[in-house]
């Protein structure tokens, strides 16, 4: 493997959890650097002395790495060696290093135009208080478009790939008794004690290794190094088959009824393209009995002047890089701390052989073991003081320190400068309460620890460790063990006895009290002091927050929205609490008085592809096929999506235009014979002695007298009287019917029938079963259909008199038992052959064998639409839109108001507005120019010359060229249309032309129905 000559100047020769025997090479901004297995991209960058990892988006200030985990706001990089594998906004602190990793900084500023950058950053900076864009770019109005392009350019971090994602993702549904979130000390002991009860346990942690802070801790558990305890617990857990361990898995959402989403990154640590056949990322959709949140806490940085200069870091992050990755992110360290915590970083730094300039303790009289040790180590501790500002631009060059008063509100003097290149600040901890908020619970403020902890919840949730504000290791371990046992017991495993609680032994270190301090005072007022950053990624400063409150944006939600605090990809993990504290102070309120801070999913961002899983491309939505689909494909059908069904739309022959095909298909049906695959129509088998009465209640027309062997068309309305479905129902036997519905309406109609049966009329003896998929339906239509069918059956008397229009008969077709319905949607002599779907294809092919001599022509939905339109038959969903009654459709013949029972829709149709004379009514439309086809959706007006807005009379619902009639035909709504026969209406077109049409009967062909009654 080739390495360039660069050395990892900040890498220690020993220590850490990196694997020095596995050197890796990666690229950052075009330069390649060495690193080791076990590094994160961030630790590798620091090892190589890379200070600047980006520029801030508003002021374009140089930014460096601050943190070591999910809380990092600055080190947000573009990843990807190829266009298709680009990933924007990857947090370098969470990205494991792999060989060949390619990364670039994603400056807020898109162009490399330095003038523009410096203009915005330096000069413009002062012109950009929070909400500045609300206050300007308004005049002149016409220029806003230009302003906006300029603003948009400045936006965004990384970029989307412009090629399709080559990786695959999926989802696994999980069920568990106990879900433990976080595998730090509390989470590990919770999982262990729960697992030992035999309960199903899932333990998930966002990091590659379990252990959390124990992975870089000096503390001892049961006398052994903490890391050994982690190893032994992990080993025991791995051996339990009731426990599922998910490393590299972030619990991102905690939804209602204990449903959690876990984002598992399975290959992102190997390469930016997953190994062939492997799933890149997987979502676990978890339903948990009980949840133990052991999500830990996030260290708060202190807010001081120029605290964003590279070299300013979290004290805990400094320790993490030294102890876990063997990287010392600088040479000369100044630590600022409000508690004993910061001392630890100084000790680690000193142990790493680098210079500790000073420990600046904001407390006047710090006590605690660490102070004594600092003296033993000969470290300089400056008490009652703070770093009020750092110097330097691309790297810290010095720290300005000063004495502060006991409240931490003002500088009391003694200002001096210390030379250093790193400033670590320790401002206390913020429990990671995020998940506890997702189902609506608000966190509670605790004065004793000056932090929010998970609030009251209706979830089956327990919390353990630092998320509770319990920061000492021994307490974390005990809480974990106890909550694990309790969670398991609540889920029905084991009792809650203490025997199950194994408490590890840890020697406690005595800690002194912590000082409450968020915002370090400066000699100048906040508004005039150097920028003191609160939210780094969104460039929100302490001064900015003061401006917001000064302007009356006083609710913390207003402050956040006005300043954009917390709206970055880190969602304010570092900044929110500091921001609330500063807002509270500027309004003389307490933090809880400014409101609580509520977190939404996701804890950290999730790849869209992972959420979509397999449900994209051809699996985006089911394609439903009839039993004859293969034939349609082989015969060149074009398909129409109807609901989830793929229906043949038309069957073009070589060289045909669509209109040619339709003309040919229509003529074939009218002149001889055509065949349609009608299998997709919904079919509902209805049995029971009340079946007939039930039909009478759900259809608008009468069913009492429909005899066995007969079929009838029906209209179905809602309680509002508006038509929503239609179809033919056949009486198979006195207590047995089969109903057909529209293709798209099948499921809805079945549920509709069940709704009324189950909730309104349970006493009625009737059962409904779907048989849609069970029957294949072949509609043979045309003058020769009888002759054709006769060649395929010898047990059905097809003669005019014995097999009448609207009869059905059973028998065999092509040797296959069939139910044949003599019904017609084309107006021609027509037979619907229903056979069990396993034989649909066979019969279909047999029909074609004998059909050749009749020029049997397959036709699709479009021809079917033309043929029915020639007859004025409606299509529910095309000629109806949920706002028309049967009367509006001119189908009063299909309304039986004398029925004893007030059928569904009757009352609705009788409402004041529905009985008006002048409603929009469905009529036929004959264009003055018979060759002109009115585009569907055209709107009718009485006078095309009237000014806009025009008074519209109704729209065209169906419109075609009728090859059989040699002129166009159309149906549409016209206000009062049924009483306007012969009148002319006008259809203004987008191109300015106007189509004239005469209102007429919608029945254009064979009004007497002679053709279907032969």
């Amino acid at each position, binding site marked *: 493997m080739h390495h360039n000559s660069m050395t990892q100047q900040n890498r220690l020769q020993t220590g850490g959890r990196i694997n020095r025997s596995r050197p890796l090479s990666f690229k950052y901004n075009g330069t390649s650097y060495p690193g080791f297995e076990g590094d994160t991209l961030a630790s590798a960058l620091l090892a190589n002395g890379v200070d600047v990892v980006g520029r801030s988006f508003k002021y374009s200030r140089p930014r460096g790495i601050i943190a070591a985990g999910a809380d990092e706001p600055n080190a947000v990089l573009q990843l990807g060696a190829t266009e298709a594998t680009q*990933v*924007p*906004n990857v947090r370098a602190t969470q990205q494991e290093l792999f060989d060949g990793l390619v990364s670039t900084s994603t400056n807020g500023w898109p162009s490399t135009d330095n003038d523009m950058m410096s203009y915005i950053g330096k000069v413009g900076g002062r012109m950009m*208080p929070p909400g500045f*864009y*609300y*206050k*300007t770019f*308004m*005049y002149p*109005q016409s220029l*806003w478009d230009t302003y*906006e392009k300029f603003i948009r*350019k400045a*936006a965004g*971090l990384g970029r*989307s790939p412009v*090629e399709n*994602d080559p990786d695959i993702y999926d989802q696994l549904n999980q069920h568990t008794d106990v879900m433990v979130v976080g595998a730090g000390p509390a989470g590990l002991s919770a999982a262990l004690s729960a697992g030992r009860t035999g309960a199903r346990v899932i333990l998930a942690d966002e990091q590659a290794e379990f252990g959390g802070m124990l992975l870089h801790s000096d503390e001892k558990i049961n006398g052994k190094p903490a890391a050994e305890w982690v190893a032994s617990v992990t080993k025991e857990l791995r051996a339990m088959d009731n426990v599922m361990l998910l490393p590299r898995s972030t619990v991102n959402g905690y939804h*209602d009824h204990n449903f959690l989403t876990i984002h598992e990154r399975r290959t992102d640590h190997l390469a930016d393209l997953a190994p062939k056949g492997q799933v890149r990322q997987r979502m676990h*959709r978890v339903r948990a009995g009980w949840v133990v949140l052991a999500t830990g806490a996030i260290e708060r940085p202190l807010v001081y002047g120029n605290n964003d200069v590279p070299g300013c870091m979290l004290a805990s992050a400094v320790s993490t890089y030294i102890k876990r990755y063997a990287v010392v992110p600088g040479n000369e360290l100044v630590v600022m701390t409000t508690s004993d915590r910061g001392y630890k970083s100084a000790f680690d730094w000193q142990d790493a052989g680098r210079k500790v300039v000073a420990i600046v303790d904001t407390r006047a009289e710090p006590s605690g073991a660490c102070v004594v040790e600092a003296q033993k180590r000969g470290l300089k501790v400056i008490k009652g003081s703070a770093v009020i500002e750092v110097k330097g631009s691309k790297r810290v060059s010095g720290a300005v320190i000063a004495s502060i008063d006991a409240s931490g509100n003002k500088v009391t003097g003694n200002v001096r400068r210390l030379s250093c290149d790193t400033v670590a600040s320790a401002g206390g901890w913020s429990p990671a309460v995020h998940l506890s908020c*997702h*189902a*609506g619970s608000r966190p509670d403020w605790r004065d004793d620890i000056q932090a929010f902890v998970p609030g009251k919840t209706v979830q089956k949730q327990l919390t353990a460790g630092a998320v509770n504000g319990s920061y000492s290791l021994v307490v974390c371990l005990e809480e974990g063990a106890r909550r694990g046992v309790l969670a398991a017991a609540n889920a029905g495993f084991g009792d809650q006895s203490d025997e199950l609680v194994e408490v590890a032994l840890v020697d406690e270190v005595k800690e002194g009290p912590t000082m409450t301090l968020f915002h370090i005072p400066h000699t100048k*007022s906040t*508004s005039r002091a150097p920028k003191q950053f609160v939210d780094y990624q969104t460039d929100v400063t302490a*001064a900015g927050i003061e*401006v917001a409150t*000064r302007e*009356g*944006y006083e609710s913390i*939600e207003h402050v956040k929205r006005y300043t954009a605090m917390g709206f970055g*990809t880190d969602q304010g993990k570092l900044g929110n609490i500091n921001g609330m504290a500063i807002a509270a102070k500027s309004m003389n309120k307490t933090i809880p008085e400014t409101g609580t801070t509520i977190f*939404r999913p*996701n804890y950290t*961002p999730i*790849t*869209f*592809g992972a*959420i*979509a899983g397999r*449900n994209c*491309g051809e699996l*985006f939505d089911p394609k439903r096929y009839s039993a004859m689909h293969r034939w349609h494909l082989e015969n060149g059908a074009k398909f129409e*999506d109807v609901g989830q069904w793929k229906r043949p739309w038309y069957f073009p022959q070589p060289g045909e235009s669509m209109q040619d095909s339709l003309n040919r298909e229509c003529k074939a049906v009218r002149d001889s014979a055509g065949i349609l695959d009608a299998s997709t129509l919904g079919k509902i088998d209805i049995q029971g002695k009340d079946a007939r009465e039930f039909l009478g209640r759900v259809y608008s027309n009468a069913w009492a007298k429909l005899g066995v062997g007969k079929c009838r068309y029906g209209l179905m309305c809602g309680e*509002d009287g508006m038509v929503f479905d239609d179809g033919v129902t056949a009486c198979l036997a006195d207590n047995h019917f089969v109903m057909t519905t529209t293709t798209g309406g099948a499921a809805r109609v079945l549920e509709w029938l069940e709704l009324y049966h189950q909730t309104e009329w349970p006493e009625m003896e009737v059962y409904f079963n779907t048989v849609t998929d069970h029957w294949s339906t072949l509609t043979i239509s045309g003058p020769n259909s009888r002759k054709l069918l006769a060649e395929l059956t010898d047990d059905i008397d097809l003669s005019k008199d014995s097999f009448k229009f609207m009869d059905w008969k059973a028998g065999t077709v092509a040797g296959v038992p069939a139910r044949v319905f003599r019904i017609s949607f084309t107006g021609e002599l027509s037979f619907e052959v229903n056979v069990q779907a396993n034989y649909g294809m066979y019969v279909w092919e047999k029909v074609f064998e004998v059909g050749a001599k009749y020029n049997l022509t397959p036709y699709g939905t479009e021809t079917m639409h033309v043929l029915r339109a020639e007859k004025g038959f409606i299509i529910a969903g095309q000629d109806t*839109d*949920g*706002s028309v009654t049967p009367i509006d459709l001119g189908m009063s013949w299909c309304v039986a108001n004398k029925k004893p029972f007030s059928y569904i829709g009757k009352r609705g149709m009788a*409402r004041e*507005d*529905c009985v008006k004379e002048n409603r929009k009514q469905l009529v036929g439309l004959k264009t003055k120019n018979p060759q002109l086809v009115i585009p569907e*959706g*055209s709107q009718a*007006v009485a006078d095309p010359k009237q000014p806009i*807005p025009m008074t519209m009379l109704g*729209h065209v*619902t169906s419109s075609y060229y009728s090859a059989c009639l040699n002129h166009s035909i159309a149906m549409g709504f016209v206000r009062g249309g049924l009483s306007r026969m012969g009148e002319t209406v006008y259809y*203004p077109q*987008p191109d300015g032309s106007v189509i004239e049409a005469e209102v007429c009967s919608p029945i254009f062909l064979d009004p007497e129905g002679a053709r279907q009654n032969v």
Partner: protein
Amino acid sequence: MQKYSGFGLFKHALSHHENWQRAWRNPTPKKKYDVIIVGGGGHGLATAYYLAKEHNITNIAVLEKGYLGGGNTARNTTIVRSNYLWDEAAHLYEHAMKLWEGLSQDLNYNVMFSQRGVLNLGHTLQDMRDIERRVNANRLNGIDGEVLDTQQVSEIVPIMDCSSDTRYPVMGASWQPRAGVARHDAVAWGFARAADQLGVDLIQQCEVVDILTEDGAAIGVETKQHGTIKADRIGCVVAGNSSVLAKMAGFSLPLESHPLQALVSEPIKPILDTVVMSNHVHGYVSQSDKGDLVIGAGIDAYTGYGQRGSYSTVEHTIQAIVELFPIFSRVRMNRQWGGIVDTCPDACPIISDTPVENLFFNCGWGTGGFKATPGSGNVFAATLAKGEAHELAKPFSMFRFYDGTLIDEHGAAGVAH
């Protein structure tokens, strides 16, 4: 009032932004007002503004139980369009559109109204029929719009998968160039600031717990924090709470309150310049000036006041976005949230008098409220001022659900927006 301008900004920069005035006062409520508006969201604040500006009624209080613009105004996906199907809805939304065009100057507050155009995609033959019908109606109603074919759509949004081999190929779209997006919070703040300047009292943290009536007429409200506040007329503009307020006044509404979810990606460089909406695959997306992809879909089917919905809805939405934009597969979802939308059976709002005299309701905007904000406030202000419905508001009476004169916009509003 302190005028906002580039020069003002420069001036304040010199004084380190220490002298900005409050955008609005924080007054203690009087005992009585001419008009009380319950609800300090976009619609309520707009109502107050136009009452003061166009009807010279300035003795107004806006009572907000939380913080201004903290409800759906703060939670929507900021789409503004007026290409509705039926005349009544089209005229109302177009009235709003005309007010949007110039709102920043009117309010002296940049609401960042960005007329980048909205595409409503069609994926089936019936979709395209509905689009033709709607666009024809829009044109004859004086609303801009055209029907685009697949080729034209892919020219406007080249990054969208317009190929014919997708599950539901893009067959075309309706295109309204004047439509677009606006900065949602700024709309509430802009109206608040302008209303405050005209003397309107904006009372935050003031929850109405009862509506006081005397022989069938409303005379005031009881509040949690400030006791009784009287008024000659009361307008309720409390999306997500309308049924609760109506119950206080003793009647019910034809409403169901549903969760409506939205989500954003991490900010990425500008890549999508228009708003793309698809009823059929159930997703819509635009890119904010900050760079986030702002995404939403349909409502959750159950009623819910929790400002959150079901994860499966988010999954389906993202599936739709990845289906339309396969290149977004590796982009990451940052945050999700929910609002509460009061939906009417005909997907049209209620702007109406009520069974209680002097009590008026403006509600039921479902998923279409934000885009109507100025228009809604404008016609509701006129309605409150005159005590009878503004011409454009008349068709939206709550009593249409008795006589059946519904305005069924489901075709146009089938998916959240």
